[in-house]
């Protein structure tokens, strides 16, 4: 147990504006940023919570509680609860995003958990990650005096270390709108409860006159391993649907190579499921 015990009382700060938050965090960069707190609290299964000396409750920061929509993208404040995103965005959210968000934990947890919190879990990529990735999610990161935008894959590029500077806060999430003809999402098992069996899959495709105009697909696995192959995607663009066995074969080979490189992280069973999911995605390309 850490030294921040019940004896040294926790100080909680509750800024209501972004400016206030950034200035506070600049002074207390080791403070814990707390919004829904679901991930932090889930890890403490005893009656008595242990929190660090300083906690900044960001759930009242107005700028981070908003959802904005333009013609080209959707902006979601990092402290908006997932339950709210689902109800407000019911007709706006990309289908795969709704599907992925709706499968997080239980309604009570979704009402507290936020998208910002979901993205900022460093030790593993959550079930939503493949969807975020394929939708080209951009993140707004702010600290006192500066603001920068970064694509999600760069933010989470180095394993368990996120690209967050000292005093820097994820404030806003931008999801560009794009039209896809095929959108599929599938989550198998739960990442926190049975990580060894967990898989998340997202596949997107644009098909024009039975020819694949654009396609992306990605698998999330336990830990920080995300499988996506641009090579496989490029190989498929321009191919006809339904995808013939001949066209599919090289894609399976690429993916098999990729999973084989990560044998220590993926059991034979998981690799079998990855192949089966991919085959299923290809079969869906026929139906659309």
């Amino acid at each position, binding site marked *: 147990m850490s030294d921040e015990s019940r004896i040294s*009382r*926790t100080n909680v700060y509750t800024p209501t504006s972004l400016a206030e938050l950034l200035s506070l965090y600049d002074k207390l960069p080791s403070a814990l940023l707390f919004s*829904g707190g679901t991930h932090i*609290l889930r890890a403490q299964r005893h009656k008595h919570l242990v929190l660090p000396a300083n906690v900044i409750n960001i759930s009242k920061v107005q700028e981070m509680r908003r959802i904005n929509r333009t013609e080209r993208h959707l902006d979601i404040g990092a402290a908006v609860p997932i339950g709210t995103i689902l109800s407000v965005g019911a007709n706006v959210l990309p289908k795969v995003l709704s599907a992925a968000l709706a499968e997080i934990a239980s309604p009570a947890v979704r009402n507290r958990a936020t998208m910002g919190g979901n993205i900022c879990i460093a030790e593993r990529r959550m079930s939503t990650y493949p969807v975020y990735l394929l939708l080209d999610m951009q993140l707004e990161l702010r600290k006192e005096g500066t603001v920068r935008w970064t694509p999600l894959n760069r933010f989470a590029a180095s394993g368990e270390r996120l690209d967050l500077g000292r005093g820097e806060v994820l404030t806003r999430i931008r999801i560009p709108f794009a039209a896809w003809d095929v959108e599929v999402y599938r989550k198998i098992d739960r990442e926190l409860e049975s990580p060894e069996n967990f898989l998340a899959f997202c596949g997107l495709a644009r098909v024009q006159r039975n020819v694949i105009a654009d396609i992306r697909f990605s698998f999330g696995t336990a830990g920080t391993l995300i499988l996506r192959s641009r090579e496989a995607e490029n190989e498929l663009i321009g191919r006809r649907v339904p995808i013939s066995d001949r066209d599919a074969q090289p894609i399976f080979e690429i993916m098999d190579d990729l999973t084989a490189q990560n044998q220590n992280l993926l059991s034979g069973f998981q690799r079998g499921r990855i192949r089966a999911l991919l085959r299923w995605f290809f079969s869906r390309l026929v139906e659309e």
Partner: protein
Amino acid sequence: MNIAFTLNGKSVVVNVEPEKRLVDILRENFSITSAKAGCYSGECGACSVLFDGALACSCMLPAFAVRGGEVLTIEGFEGSEEHAEIIKAFGDAGYRPCSYCASARILAVEALLRTNPQPDEREVLIGLSGISCQCAGYTSLVKAVALAVEARKSKRRVRRE
């Protein structure tokens, strides 16, 4: 730390450690034991309350996060028309959760119907999925919620007329 919030419609102030969980505040400071302290990790759902109108696990709400919020437990919900409708629907459907999880289930049904007035079977099961007590059947749950939906629809119809 002084925490002011609304509990079952009344303004209250309580002096507690900021990290004390709402479920324990309810039980120890207000003697409201209908919210059960189970897993302390948001998994069993026995501590469910409505927080700012939405279903929440009260074990997942530290005191500081409750400040200024509105908490509704079964004690505050009892006596309302909606509560009576749900109880009647449970009875008519033969749905009998045990008294350990009954309040959580009643509140979860209320929360579900507030956001989704006509849930299908899957939505009902998902809506109640956060409460893991194994006491009651699923078939009668689905039936009970369907009856509650009907009751609310006919009430709305009567009001319109």
